[in-house]
């Protein structure tokens, strides 16, 4: 078959007809679909999506014996997606959730500024009753929905500084870590902060379709976009909840701290900072108000004095002086320095022990002149060449003993403390200084500052006879993940064990010797070693300080106690430490009168400037 060109060119019309016909079919179909058929408009209204964040259960926290310290409670947040909000009875809505109309408008505007299509928190932490009432009629208010999540609860109301708190993330945190969204909670202090990424778990997501009556119509695309939340890790602390509670009771009415460490592991057994507060105050809708009150309190209960307070160590520093003097060969255990009692120069002795002591005696009697001489002998030791090098050696050794620096484990807001460097003295005294200029270092006064945690660590180091594990709060994760390496690293002081034995012996005499400064509080059938301190300070009466460990043969606990402006070490710190040791080792104490006197005792803080 052949066609002439005219016929063929006529076929153009057939083709054009097909094109136009298909176009017409489309137009007709589109007209019915878009204009005459209302069905699809309804379906579109029912086609709203809701992205529900599935908050994981935050990890729970237990003490060393498995006692629950922190758990979760369900609360309800009301969220809004501004674009899905339709005309509604605003007044009824405001009454239900107990806000004013002005607040309503303000909150909605704020949500719109954040995003028109993403959910914003509208009202947080609605009570169970309001939740029940509102959710019944929520279908009248499209665009609003509830989301369940959990807040923290602290059953025994102790260890506020250790456990810390959680609060809403701020914009900076959202910008820094895309995991967080507006309204999320984040650990703000304590272990909630240190272990935030372990405790928080991983958020999940549920995408559901919502109809025009604000009813959830099942999951979107068969749950293809959904993600299950992953619960956070549980944490077991080294803390002994009973000991902690006991310590907090003993510290009532006093300002100061107690830090107890298990020497063999570096785990913190008790971490008391006084005054303290009920951790349940910083939970829920009252959090902001309570936080401000605590912040304004002149006693500063929010500060964790155990790591944030720095104190002159006073006589508790004498073991450090003695150990370095022994290790450098500047003295021997038998070395005797002359003591003339209160008349001794350049540093007087505050005790009447009579005669000239050896090292163990000097510790038992807390003899100031002895340790000034020992310090002098160390930094002036001829093997270093000159005093500057001698001082550098001494400074290095204190560093190795855990002084002048943070441990950087899992305790937030640690302070360095202060062991002055050589360059500090060079600058301050224009390079003209000698052992006499810096004599107060020898008795733990002057520029030396130590945190209670560092002080407890000194006690633990002596108990261990030469090493320590960086003090930390965690004992284990609930899922047996290993705790960070730096907390399991044995730190060596570089001082021979035999020197520690001498010091230990001296400390034992402090508690058990005839002249010991802590002899009045010897614990029945439990051996202990300790050292009192009475630290002069610019804030008034001396601080009462005591460090100790027990039992001497096999130390299970090392402790530091500081009572600000408590006077002599033996007045407050010794009895409190003694009770803590007994409580931990025996499980109870045999001295109820002492216990009562300590708990009821009030040491008021007097600012004398």
């Amino acid at each position, binding site marked *: 078959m052949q066609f002439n060109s005219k016929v063929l060119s006529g076929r153009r019309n057939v083709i054009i007809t097909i094109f136009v016909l298909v176009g017409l079919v489309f137009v007709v179909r589109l007209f019915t679909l878009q204009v005459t058929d209302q069905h699809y408009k309804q*379906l579109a209204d029912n086609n709203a999506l809701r992205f529900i964040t599935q908050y994981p259960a935050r990890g729970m926290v237990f003490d060393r014996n498995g006692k629950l310290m922190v758990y979760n409670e369900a609360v309800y947040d009301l969220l809004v997606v501004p674009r899905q909000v339709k005309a509604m009875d605003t007044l009824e809505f405001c009454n239900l959730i107990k806000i004013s109309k002005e607040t309503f408008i303000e909150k909605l505007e704020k949500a719109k500024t954040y995003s028109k299509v993403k959910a914003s928190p509208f009202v947080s932490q609605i009570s169970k009753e309001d939740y029940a009432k509102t959710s019944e009629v929520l279908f009248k208010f499209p665009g609003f929905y509830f989301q369940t999540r959990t807040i923290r609860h602290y059953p025994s109301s102790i260890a506020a500084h250790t456990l810390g708190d959680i609060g809403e993330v701020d914009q900076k945190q959202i910008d820094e870590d895309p995991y967080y969204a507006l309204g999320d909670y984040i650990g703000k202090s304590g272990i909630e902060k240190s272990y935030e990424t372990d405790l928080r778990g991983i958020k999940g997501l549920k995408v559901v379709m919502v109809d025009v009556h604000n009813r959830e119509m099942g999951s979107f695309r068969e749950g293809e976009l959904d993600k299950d939340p992953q619960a956070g890790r549980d944490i077991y602390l080294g803390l002994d909840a009973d000991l902690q509670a006991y310590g907090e009771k003993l510290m009532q009415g006093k300002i100061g701290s107690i830090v107890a460490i298990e020497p063999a592991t570096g785990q913190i057994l008790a971490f008391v900072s006084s005054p303290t507060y009920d951790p349940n105050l910083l939970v829920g809708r009252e959090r902001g108000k309570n936080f401000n009150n605590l912040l304004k309190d002149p006693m500063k209960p929010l500060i964790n004095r155990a790591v944030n307070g720095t104190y002159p160590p006073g006589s508790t520093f004498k073991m450090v002086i003695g150990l370095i003097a022994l290790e450098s060969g500047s003295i021997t255990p038998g070395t005797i320095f002359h003591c003339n009692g209160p008349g001794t120069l350049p540093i007087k002795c505050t005790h009447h022990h009579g005669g000239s002591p050896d090292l163990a005696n000097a510790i038992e009697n807390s003899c100031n002149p002895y340790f000034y001489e020992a310090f002098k002998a160390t930094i002036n030791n001829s093997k270093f060449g000159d005093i500057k090098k001698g001082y550098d050696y001494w400074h290095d050794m204190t560093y190795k003993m855990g002084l002048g620096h943070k441990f950087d484990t899992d305790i937030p807001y640690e302070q360095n403390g202060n062991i002055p460097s050589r360059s500090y003295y060079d600058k301050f005294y224009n390079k003209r200084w000698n052992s006499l200029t810096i004599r107060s270092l020898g008795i733990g006064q002057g520029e030396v500052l130590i945190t209670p945690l560092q002080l407890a660590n000194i006690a633990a180091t002596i108990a261990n006879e030469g090493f320590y594990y960086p003090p930390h709060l965690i004992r284990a994760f609930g899922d047996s993940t290993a705790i960070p390496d730096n907390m399991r690293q044995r730190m060596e002081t570089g001082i021979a064990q035999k020197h520690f034995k001498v010091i230990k012996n001296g400390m034992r005499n402090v508690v058990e010797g005839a002249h010991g400064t802590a002899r009045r509080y010897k614990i029945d059938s439990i051996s202990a070693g300790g050292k009192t301190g009475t630290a002069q300070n610019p804030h008034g009466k001396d601080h009462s300080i005591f460090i100790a460990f027990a039992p001497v043969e096999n130390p299970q606990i090392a402790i530091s106690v500081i009572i600000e402006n408590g006077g002599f070490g033996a007045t407050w710190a010794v009895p409190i430490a003694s009770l803590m040791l007994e409580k931990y080792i025996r499980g109870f104490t045999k001295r109820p009168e002492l216990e009562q006197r300590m708990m009821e005792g009030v040491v008021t803080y007097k600012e004398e400037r």
Partner: protein
Amino acid sequence: MTDNRNHIIGKVDWPLLLIYFALALIGWFSVFSAKYDEMHPHIFDLSQVYGKQLLWIGASMFVAFLILLIDAKFFNAFAFWIYCIILFGLVAVLAYGTATKGATSWINLGGGMKLQPSEFAKLGTALAVANYLGRLNVDLGKRKTRIATYAIILLPMALVFLQNDTGSAIVFVSFLFVLYREGFPGSGLTMLLGVLAVVLFVLTLIWSQQTMYIIIAALFALTMTFHLIGKRRYWMRIVVIYSCMAAFVFSVHFAFFKVLQQHQRTRIEVMLGMKDDPHGAGYNLHQSKIAIGSGGLWGKGFLQGTQTKYDFVPEQHTDFIFCTVGEEGGFKGTFVVVLLYVALLVRIVTLAERQRSAFSRIYGYAIAGIFFVHFAINIGMTIGLVPVIGIPLPFLSYGGSSLLAFTIMLAIFVKQDANRLNIL
């Protein structure tokens, strides 16, 4: 013809180019709206697909401009070479291509650039067919000519089919228009039979095999009755035709249930309304219809769509871009787009008829057919008239390869048309 450069602006067919610009612009805004993200509210943001689409539009227009500067005879002269290069690309993609959504049709060029050779295969085939049939010595009466023509079309079609890109392979059916226009023996009949086959296919599935046999038998009896009354002698042919119909119905049943894959079967069933499955296989179509249907007469307004904003419609910036037009532009918007396409097609055919060279005319019909099939299948699928077949809507859908390929197709034709008076 060195003076072309100076006169090209005056000679190009501006109506055609204006339609092209309008569609590309609508496409860009639709992609922006479909993928709009509050974090990146700027339409020029190159990190987003809408910014990239602008880059592709710019690149395509630049290439189009270059084509207008090249000598018009180039494309006829090099048609077979271009065709061969593209065939080579199709083979390469089978060997080295990366799979996306089940189809192995992409070649990775590195640096995030991907090329889809199948988009260019249509262009190459159009050039090759135009070149071959446009030769003066070609005799359509010879069997050799017919076989060669079919081979030119079926070879790339088979290669695309092997990539598992069924949609793009189906587009090659569009060459029937060219063959019909050029008087290819049997092409008109093929189209008629094709329509008849589709009707039988659909009816068989809707009404079941048995019903169809009964209807065919009834029609056969009726025809025979009239035939015997008229005392004509074509009864043999009638028997053959009806037997073929019955055989076809049987094979449809067989093919549908034994040959087609499950997802293809489901798509057809959903399209025919045999299955109502808004959450499963019919999900795309269901959501697509909701998006378009909720647009109303005037649409919800630019960026105001709720269905497309929430990703209810999958692939809404590529194959389902028409949903955004439908939801935000309403019937007003869809009408304009359909009108623009019909105008484009009619204009191409009209211009093709005024060509002096057979190459230009045949090429014009070839691309008109390609555009038409894309237009018919893509829009047809979004409104439920055609089963879901994933091919882009020319100039509107997001995608560099397709936009570039369609632009080149059109630009070559505009160049041929601008040059038509130079051909003696």
